[in-house]
C-alpha cells in the first residue's frame, strides 16, 4: 500500500464515522406510496430486457465488423505490397537475348 492509499484510509475512516449517524423514521405515507407504485408499475418485462441487450449486441457486432474489416484491409494491403516483381521484370522489362 503506497503513501497516498494509507492517507486515503485515514481520511475515509474519519469520513465513514458520519455514516453511523442516526437515521430518520419512516416518512408518513411512505409505505402507502410504495405499495401503490409497485402495483401500478409493471415489473421489468422480458421484452425490455431483450431490448436493452439487443442494443448492446448491435454495438458489439458493429465494433467487431469494423475490427475485422480493418484486419482484412491490412492483410490485403500487405499482400499487395509483397507481390513479387521479379517475374514481371524478367519477362517484360529485361530484353532477352535472341538465340
Amino acid at each position, binding site marked *: 500500500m503506497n503513501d*497516498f492509499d494509507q492517507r486515503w484510509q485515514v481520511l*475515509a475512516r*474519519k469520513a465513514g464515522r458520519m*455514516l453511523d449517524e442516526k437515521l430518520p423514521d419512516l416518512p408518513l405515507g411512505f409505505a402507502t406510496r410504495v*405499495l401503490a407504485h*409497485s402495483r401500478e*408499475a409493471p415489473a421489468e418485462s422480458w421484452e425490455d430486457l431483450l431490448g436493452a441487450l439487443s442494443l448492446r449486441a448491435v454495438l458489439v457486432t458493429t465494433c467487431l465488423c469494423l475490427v475485422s474489416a480493418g484486419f482484412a484491409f491490412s492483410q490485403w494491403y500487405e499482400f499487395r505490397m509483397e507481390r513479387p516483381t521479379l517475374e514481371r521484370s524478367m519477362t517484360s522489362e529485361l530484353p532477352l537475348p535472341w538465340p
Partner: protein
Amino acid sequence: MPDAFDVQACIGRVRAGDEAASRALIEHLHPLVRRMVRNHLPRRESEEDLIQEAFIKVFQKLEGYQSRDGIPFEHWVSRLTVRTCLDALRAERVRPEWRMADLRESETKWLDFLLHRQAVEPQASTTDAQAIVTRLLALLSAPDRLVLTLLDLEQRSTLEISEITGWTRAMVKMRAMRARFKLRQIARRVMKNDFPNP
C-alpha cells in the same frame, strides 16, 4: 426485549396479498435501505425518491425471490438497492467540476494531507472529512465510487462486497486498487491546476 421479526413468514404473507405484512416489511427494511441509499446517493437525486424506487423493485421482484440457507433476505434487498443506486449513479452523466477555491480551509488541509503536502492528520471535523471525500468520489465513475464507498467508508469485507455487487473478490480488489489510483490522479490534477509549477 422485542420479538425478532420473522422475515420469511412476513414474505409469505406479502405474497398472499396481506397489506399489513407489506407495511411491516417496509418498516423492517427501511433503515437498511435508507443507509445504503444515503451512502451511494448521486448528487442530484433525492434520497426519498431513490429509497422509494428501491422498495418498488423489492416488491416487484419479490415473487422471484427464493430463500437460500445461510443467506438472509436482507442480502437480497441490499443487492437490489445497490443495483438501483448504481443505475442512478450511471445515469448521472455530468461529473461535477470544482477548484481549490471552492473548498473550505479544512477541506484544503485534507487534500494537502492526502498529497503529502502536510505531514500530520488535520484536526478538522468529521463533517469536513466527509465533504472532501464526497467531492473526490463524485469525480469517479459509478462502479469505482461504489467500490470505494463499500470498502473504505463502510469498511465492508471483499466477500460482502462480492455478495452485494455480484463481482468476484478479485474483481473487487482490482477495481478498488484502480479507483484509488484514479483518485490520486484526480487530487494531483486539482492541485496542479490551482498551483502550477513555475
